[in-house]
């Protein structure tokens, strides 16, 4: 039986202003995919629900997970105060994740992460490198020179950086970088803010390629039971029988044409 587990904090550090990296020792994440997420519980009487956070890395014989997250409110604030050796409740891995078979078939897959959408790209790059032996191109979009995680990609990917203020790499967002570098992906995997995902969808439609994007929605259960986290779909969803798919279960990764109407 699956269950909520008590994970031990191995390390927590602030990567840059308000962005934290948390390493947790977990029982068994053997079947975890890149693009999946966990629910992590702030453990406070006033913040009972779990917070969905993507897997940034799964390592150490798949018994160590890394989460990289932004302090956005009370729950993540509390989580950011976890210290080494303390414990925290975690549920996962959850969701579908990116499809490795598809990624493996692609000749020039390109990964795009914007802001706090960057963390899941790390495990994805590692997984693609592992299955295909090729280092995918990864476009990372930051606000300014306060980069984070960029250096972690070096072993498994070719990194291209964009910053909104132009302080590092291309001035602009990941799409600007794609154009500047004249890249022609035959598949895109992405995570980031809504405007970025919409731009990617448009690009994918124009270029007639597939784009797999990771969506965010407010969640209560994380396991498909509450129907809180749905996103509008282009077609009738197989489970719900209406034009709504659960981000926590059918997602968080969707082919862009299927969602974002």
């Amino acid at each position, binding site marked *: 039986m699956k269950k909520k587990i008590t994970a031990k904090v191995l390390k927590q550090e602030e990567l840059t202003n308000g962005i934290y990296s948390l390493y947790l020792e977990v029982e068994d994440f053997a079947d975890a995919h890149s693009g999946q997420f966990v629910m992590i519980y702030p453990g406070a009487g006033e913040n009972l629900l779990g917070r969905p956070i993507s897997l940034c890395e799964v390592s150490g014989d798949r018994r160590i997970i890394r989460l990289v997250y932004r302090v956005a409110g009370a729950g993540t604030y509390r989580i950011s105060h976890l210290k080494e050796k303390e414990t925290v409740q975690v549920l996962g891995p959850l969701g579908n994740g990116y499809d490795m078979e598809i990624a493996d078939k692609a000749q020039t897959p390109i990964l795009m992460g914007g802001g706090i959408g960057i963390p899941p790209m790390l495990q994805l790059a590692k997984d693609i490198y592992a299955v295909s032996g090729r280092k995918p191109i990864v476009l990372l979009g930051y606000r300014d020179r306060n980069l984070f995680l960029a250096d972690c990609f070096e072993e498994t990917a070719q990194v291209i950086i964009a910053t909104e203020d132009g302080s590092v790499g291309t001035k602009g967002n990941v799409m600007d970088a794609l154009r500047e570098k004249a890249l022609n992906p035959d598949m895109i995997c992405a995570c980031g803010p809504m405007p970025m995902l919409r731009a990617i969808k448009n690009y994918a439609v124009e270029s007639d390629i597939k784009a797999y994007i990771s969506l965010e*929605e*407010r969640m209560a259960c994380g396991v498909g039971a509450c129907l809180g986290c749905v996103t509008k779909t282009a077609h009738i969803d197989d489970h719900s029988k209406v034009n709504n798919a659960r981000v926590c279960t059918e997602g968080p990764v969707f082919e862009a044409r299927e969602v974002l109407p």
Partner: protein
Amino acid sequence: MNMKVKIAGVEFKNPVTVASGTFGSGMEYGEFVDLNRLGAITTKGVANVPWEGNPTPRVTEVYGGMLNAIGLQNPGIDVFIERDLAFLEKYDTRVIVNVCGHTVEEYLEVVERLSDEKRVDLLEINVSCPNVKQGAIAFGQKASELEKITKAIKEKAKQPVIMKLSPNVTDIAEMAKAAESAGADAISLINTITGMKIDVRTRKFVLANKTGGMSGPAIKPVAVRMVYQASHAVNIPVIGMGGIMKGEDAIEFMLAGAAMVSVGAANFINPGASIQVLEEMEKYMERYGVNDINELVGAVT
């Protein structure tokens, strides 16, 4: 130690079920708990046809709980029977099917479609969802309307009928009596309490629906009070719920008058919550020398 309880002639192996809408049709939590151990599985509300529900955001956290405005999204009775009831076939537990609709006719359609389904042990009629504009909540907020729909459903239903009451009323005892006098076999309460959250940063409602139903431990004192008042007003059994997080919470509801209890939002906070509640109830009984769970029902007066 006896954990068996009986409601409307149906025997349950123990008094713990899950609250409608917080457990899907059991499938989602089948990976986390042994469904055979539950007294019953109460399914998500089902309507005559698929419902899309409300726009998102549909859920948000509040102090000690959450607001939801799912708006009763459901795949409709056909898929429900084919897929969800078929899934439940495999398990040795009672099945309570929660029914919703906009009009009396819609409710009746679902009730009739279920009448030959042997896998359905009881029907729970949701007349108290605060998140759908038409029908539903009105039936649960006016005694005369409640009576009318209860009577109509009782005429058609082949299974015993539980009327699920709304806490958003002045006098819960009056509503309980209305359900009883119209023939309900049992009542369940409380459904969620209507609440609202505004994001002060964006100056917008957090939920697309503006209001949502509140659940979780924050509502427990109100739920216990209403279960007490309702169970003392009627002679039919009461299924109690609202904020049950642990065994002692469930015991509190039974002492207040509930013959059975439902674990709701707690499932979201811990997928193993329902079984944990059951085990803690058993521990309580051992510790305090209670031989039969039925001894506790309404024991505090």
